[in-house]
């Protein structure tokens, strides 16, 4: 998809009539990672795949993916959770709510 920020809106003629936005879901192009001071890191071995971090994230930045994973102790999972680092704002809700403390917030270094 052509990125909306690359469009030319330099005069009113380029703006859709009525100021409508015919490009659904396009804020996804906006990266909000720079808001972050801390980054969540998920420990895949500790994670019990309870889904809570996914459900509580305000920025849909915990991704639920169909990726199999076997822990060193032999537990097998069909799904995994990953952090969408382009959109995570580092609020820390996921780490705070994780029942097994599988998420650590580490200082972001830029």
């Amino acid at each position, binding site marked *: 998809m052509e990125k909306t920020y690359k469009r030319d809106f330099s005069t009113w003629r380029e703006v859709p009539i009525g100021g409508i936005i015919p490009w659904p879901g396009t804020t996804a192009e906006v990266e909000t990672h720079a808001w972050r001071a801390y980054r969540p890191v998920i420990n895949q071995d500790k994670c019990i795949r309870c889904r809570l971090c996914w459900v509580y994230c305000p920025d849909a930045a915990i991704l639920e993916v169909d990726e199999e994973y076997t822990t060193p102790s032999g537990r097998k999972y069909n799904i995994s959770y990953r952090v969408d680092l382009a959109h995570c704002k580092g609020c820390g809700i996921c*780490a705070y709510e994780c029942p097994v403390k599988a998420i650590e917030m580490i200082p972001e270094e830029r």
Partner: protein
Amino acid sequence: MGVNKPIKVLWDIPREERFAPGHSMCQGCGAAITMRHLAKIMDKNTIIAMGTGCVEVTTTLFPRTSWRNPWIHLAFENTAAVASGVEAALKALSRKKIIDDSRRIKVVAIAGDGGTFDIGLQSLSGMLERRHNVMYVVYDNEAYMNTGIQRSSATPYGAWTTTTPIGTKLRGKPQPKKDIITIALAHGIPYIATANIAYPVDMVEKFRKAYEVDGPSLVHVYSPCTPGWRIRNEHTIEVARLAVQTGVWVQLEIIEGEPRVTIKVPRRKHVRHYLRIQGRFRHLTDSDIETIQKMVDEYVEKINKWVGEEAIGPVVE
């Protein structure tokens, strides 16, 4: 239909995100969690009428939008009026066979507490009274957040806002929160519920039911605001959960006038647990907190009497 079976466990919530990230809501925003899950239960053709406020300005910065549905930007006071008009127009178009009348297009109205309890109350009342087939969702962050934390009639007693400052005369908001549920109830509508982001299964199931109802429905969602409530970003869910555990907020569902508490709290926590983690209540003295505890006790007693059982128990810790 977005979701065609009851939401009973966390795994019933659809994985698909219909509300895009990259919006500019604050870190830890409760309303963002509300919107994410609300969008999950909608059909692709659902029409959203949105009153201005935080969610509206942070999700539709031209030329982008977080929404994947037809969505209308509104003024502050007319959310329910526009939603009513859209619903009436859909009916007329279907009657005239301009749109296929087997196609069911739902209208969902969304507004903040200011846009619902205060300036939009008149248009909301009209919409409920005329029995428009609209699902109305009010995300309640207990003040006018978008314009800089001014008090609304949904702001609770004692809370600091920029228009209820802390000084020698005024110690936060002197009036209690308005009861929007009883106002909605007075209209005799088929479905009314209170929901809370800390209880996602209950919340999404209520969204689904309110969406399915043929006629007006109202869902009042508790949505903490990190800068406005002066809370830590990671405490959003914790505060929402404490609201329920202390009885400040009761999870209700009222179907055809019949009330029920969906999340029972047999052993209640003292309200100080809820107040002490929020900066907006930092000025409260122990005696102020006792005053609020008495208000909560009265509210809980009223609810228990109404639902005919001890749904919310005594304070134990």
